[in-house]
């Protein structure tokens, strides 16, 4: 397989796509939101447990491509034990990383600062049509944080 594809599909991504972590619906969760990508039909639901402004548990259910499944899986690992504000700024950093946003966030995102394992998604920016695959779980996560009831889509 070519080098380029490995840039997109890094081992960590393939591993999380095949064996997603935190997959399921925790009975104790107190917030949830559905995400839908109308371009490909992928759907997933993010479940959060928020206690005193801290994400104490995060999980998801759904079906999608390797990028969206791995993104959801890694996201649920990364947001745990973060405050709502910290988790939200992680989303902004992540978005800047995969969408190649300009500005301050992009500089931070460029070197993978604070992104931890999420840096494995840096290859996504070379694939504009796949950016929404990576951000779908995060849109659902942000909606769950806000306590939104309606489904969110990647087109909002």
């Amino acid at each position, binding site marked *: *397989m070519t080098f380029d594809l490995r840039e997109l599909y890094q081992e960590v991504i*393939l591993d999380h796509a*095949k064996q997603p972590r935190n997959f399921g619906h925790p009975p104790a969760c107190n917030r949830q939101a559905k995400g839908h990508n109308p371009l*490909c039909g*992928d759907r997933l639901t993010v479940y959060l447990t928020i206690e005193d402004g801290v994400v104490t548990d995060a999980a998801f259910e759904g079906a*999608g491509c390797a990028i969206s499944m791995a993104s959801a899986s890694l996201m649920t690992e990364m947001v745990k034990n973060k405050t709502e504000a910290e988790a939200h700024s992680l989303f902004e950093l992540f978005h800047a990383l995969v969408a190649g946003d300009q500005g301050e966030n992009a500089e931070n995102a460029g070197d993978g600062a604070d992104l931890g394992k999420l840096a494995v998604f840096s290859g996504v920016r070379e694939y504009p049509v796949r950016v929404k695959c990576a951000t779908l779980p995060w849109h659902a996560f942000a909606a769950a944080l806000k306590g939104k009831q309606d489904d969110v889509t990647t087109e909002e």
Partner: protein
Amino acid sequence: MTTAAGIRRQVQRDSDRLAFDVRRVREDFPILKQRVNGRPLVFLDSAASAQKPRAVIRAVQQCYEREYANIHRGVYFLSERATELFEGARVKVQRFLGAREAREIIFVRGATEAINLVAQTYGRKFLNRADEVVLSTLEHHSNIVPWQMLRDEKGLTLRIIPIDDSGALRMEEYEKLLGTRTKLVAVTHCSNALGIVTPVKEIIRLAHEKGIPVLVDGCQAVPHMPVDVRDLDCDFYVFSGHKLYGPSGIGALYGKAALLEAMPPYQGGGDMISTVTFEKTEYNVIPHKFEAGTPNIAGAIGLGAAIDYVSGLGFDEIVDHEQELLEYATEALAETNSLRLFGTVEDKVCILSFIIEGVHPHDIGTILDHEGIAIRAGHHCAQPLMDRFGVTATARASFGLYNTREDVDALVAGVRKAVEFFG
């Protein structure tokens, strides 16, 4: 019989006949010469939009370089020339579809606009509360949403012809749907997502027994088989030029003259009127009544050139070539482990829709793109059909007259790489 498999059976492998020379055909399509990601382009997304032969590109270019002016207006040479070419293209569409008269051909942006036109004119005038429109599970969103909009406006009911697991329409269920409240049947001639050719002639016959008019979406049929609207006896037939190797932004609506004459205009504006005062407007005759504003003049001329091109190659040759590819590709893909093919009927055009266990169609699409292979991954604007099969998306390889066995080989090798990569 005008179905693809019927044609295939009819075609005699006459040794005297010149074989379809796909190498020479490919020379007509400049875009196919390029490389993508360092590999020769393998274009397998013609069902979304087909590539254009040089004859079409030249016709559009020549129009703008030598023959362009507004039509139906000027008393000068160029306007007359452009009008002649534009109306000449209408005659080409008429003959291509086997319509009785050129005035039964309305130029539109594409099949989507054609269906919206029928819904908003015929539908608004002749359909009323509690009336029913029959569609099929195979429909593209463009033959669903315009009817839903009309349903919501008028209080109609949409009835859906179910399919069996092979994707074939369940004709016995269709017959049961046709009742006294049924006012229109709108069905595809060929499924864009699966390639299945529907028994439209029988669908039309059964509807006509009850006096119900039928609209046929011919987008995926016209590039792959001869169509004769008088033989089918359909009331409306729509297609898009860009899937027929013509320019984008041009398509045609065929309607029986009596129906078109009874329908109110679609959009108001210039060219669709005969006289205008501030008190009253007299509408122009068909087809002009439905063609408000300056149309896509170069597009229509380009579509005429595409029809000439396809007709020049001949459907006997095209059908033979594409059916051979279909057979070859179906067999080759079937040998791939954990691959599930949708639309497993005999009467098909060369479209292969599939999923692979454990590999999402989007990921297949990305892996293939790296090999220079363009396929479509997604719901193909046919979400109800995807729901029927319990999937959110499939990978779809769709072939045109310029595709080769080597393209199939590249597809199969690419698909196997994807299986290995994610396996």
